[in-house]
């Protein structure tokens, strides 16, 4: 039972990477980002005290809120050319499956070097891989910020097992917020030039 409970957040992290990678519309992206930080919190909870782990959740949600605040209301559920077409969704789904398999296969190799629990390693590696994939497939500001936040979430899951410093947790939270603010600033700038 314990093992299943430990697997749930890792599976949740995998599913949210799929939603983010499919890039359906703004609403889904923001929901997926919020769930991603729930998964990060849940996973980090196994190695950090609740109070410290909650920093990840609160920061992640604040980052999501900052990004969401930069989207004009009329665009929130819009599916236009910036988002994936049906063919692209199928392609991205196949890529996601391949990445899940690769992440699963990499877990024992990573365990040789880093003393991290397997569920944390799997979720961390998958988030990093999917974030990198997002970064490599776009030049759009908001996709780049989502990609960086995903990579950073994956790293934070793995790093939480290695470093339990409160100051490092605080600085990592600042970086997450900083990325969100930069994303919001760039999107506001672009929205301003669109109008």
């Amino acid at each position, binding site marked *: 039972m314990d093992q299943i409970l430990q697997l749930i957040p890792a599976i949740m992290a995998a599913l949210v990477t799929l939603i983010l990678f499919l890039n359906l519309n703004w609403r889904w992206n923001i929901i997926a980002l919020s769930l991603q930080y729930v998964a990060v919190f849940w996973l980090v909870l196994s190695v950090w005290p609740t109070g410290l782990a909650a920093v990840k959740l609160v920061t992640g949600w604040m980052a999501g809120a900052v990004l969401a605040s930069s989207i004009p209301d009329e665009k929130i559920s819009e599916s236009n050319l910036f988002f994936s077409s049906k063919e692209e969704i199928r392609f991205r789904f196949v890529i996601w499956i391949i990445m899940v398999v690769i992440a699963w296969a990499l877990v024992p190799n990573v365990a040789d*070097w*880093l003393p991290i629990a397997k569920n944390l390693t799997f979720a961390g590696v998958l988030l*990093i891989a999917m974030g990198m994939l997002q*970064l490599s497939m776009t*030049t759009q*500001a908001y996709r*780049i910020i989502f*990609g*960086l936040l995903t*990579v*950073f979430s994956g*790293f934070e899951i793995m*790093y939480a097992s*290695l*470093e339990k*410093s409160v*100051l*490092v947790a605080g*600085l*990592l939270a*600042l*970086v997450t917020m*900083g*990325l969100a*603010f*930069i994303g919001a*600033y*760039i999107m506001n*700038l*672009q929205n*301003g*030039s669109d109008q």
Partner: protein
Amino acid sequence: MSAPIIWIVTPFLMSLFAFFFRKQRLLAVLFTGGICTFLAILALTVRIDSIFPMGPLKIEIPSELILFGRSLIINDGDRYLVALLYAMGAIWFFGSRIAGVNEYFVPNSMAIISLLIAAISVQPFLFDALIVEMAVLISIPTLLQKESNDNVGIFRFLVIQTLAVPFILLAGWGFEQAAVSANAQQLYYFSAILLGFGFSMWLAVFPFYTWVPLLAESGHPFVAGFIFAIIPATAQIILVDFFNNYSWLRTEPVITGVTQTAGILMIVIPGIWAVYQKSILRLFGYLVLVEVGFAVLSFSVNTHLAWEAYFSSLLPRVVGIALCSMAITTWKNQDITLNIDSLKGLFFSQPISVISFLVGWFSLSGLPLFPMFPIRFGILTQLSQNNLPAAIWAIVATFGLFFTSMRLISVFFTRPEHNEFQLKETPVQSIFLGIGSVLLLLMGLFPNIYVRIFLETLSVYKNLP
């Protein structure tokens, strides 16, 4: 009052204060530029950790500040680096008055300088990466231009600098664990590989170099010049600290070989690419890459002369980058297309900016009589003693830059028909560019004056040869 309070905390708070009146450009420029000048002069004149007289008083500035249980330490030997960074700030802040940068440049850049000094001085070094990342994040609004939608270079810069953070943090963890681990050697190698990846991203080492020419093209050239001068310099100082603390990093043949190869690639690729480039902005980016390549090469050579050459190169590099970026900004502000083919006969309308650009370019290319020449010569002489083919490759790439220099001269000085001689630079621009050019020429003719100052910095790194 301790040194970190004077040179880190106070300027950071001042940058926050300046943020509130950033729209009153002149006031913000005078305020931040004045503070930077004062801090640079202060760093050059006072002594840290020793009692010195100041009028009727006797003052002692402690080197350490404990903040959240971590130490920020600015030693007496670090004063010159601190002075260099604040002098850089003063040059760029006063220059921003005529550069047409956005309102965020002045306050954000001051915060960047104080954060980067914090990154150099923080103990344990684990926090370096996160502090540098914050500086990178703060720099993004300064690079964005409202009138431009081409932000590819800015995004590439953000992505590569951010991806460096996990590598450096994991390397830091590895170095700490290796000291108490049973398989220490394996863990040290693992950490060294991660460290190599992290620093390759920070320093734009091949294959992570693409952000430099792209950023030169996408960002405001004056701001990009500031980023090119300050971020790699800070990353290099942090790397020097690593080399100083872990002597095996300097002596391990595999690491030396990889560092040397990376340095050579960084010189050869941009040196040869520069010959075919048409955009003056990208050329500027490639020139910066060559400069970073020589710095990496001097680390890999690891002799006393090579380390001296590295520290001697800090000041002329900053002035060279400042001159080139200022000259390009002058052209950009006059809506001149920054393509080499469009710059024909530019000397006859913009003589001072063209001469200044060429002085900066020649210096960074390492042409004789300019300040970088003896430094490059020293590094290549040292390199040729243990790796002659690498030295030959570096010389070939340097010839690529010389060839580009000749190409630039032929473009700038080709006089189109019916073109009368004009002076389109404003008096303030002319003064800035003139002072920079004279300074660089003087540094080339009398190198002993500034070299002696920066060599004292080397005394902080006691384990280096």
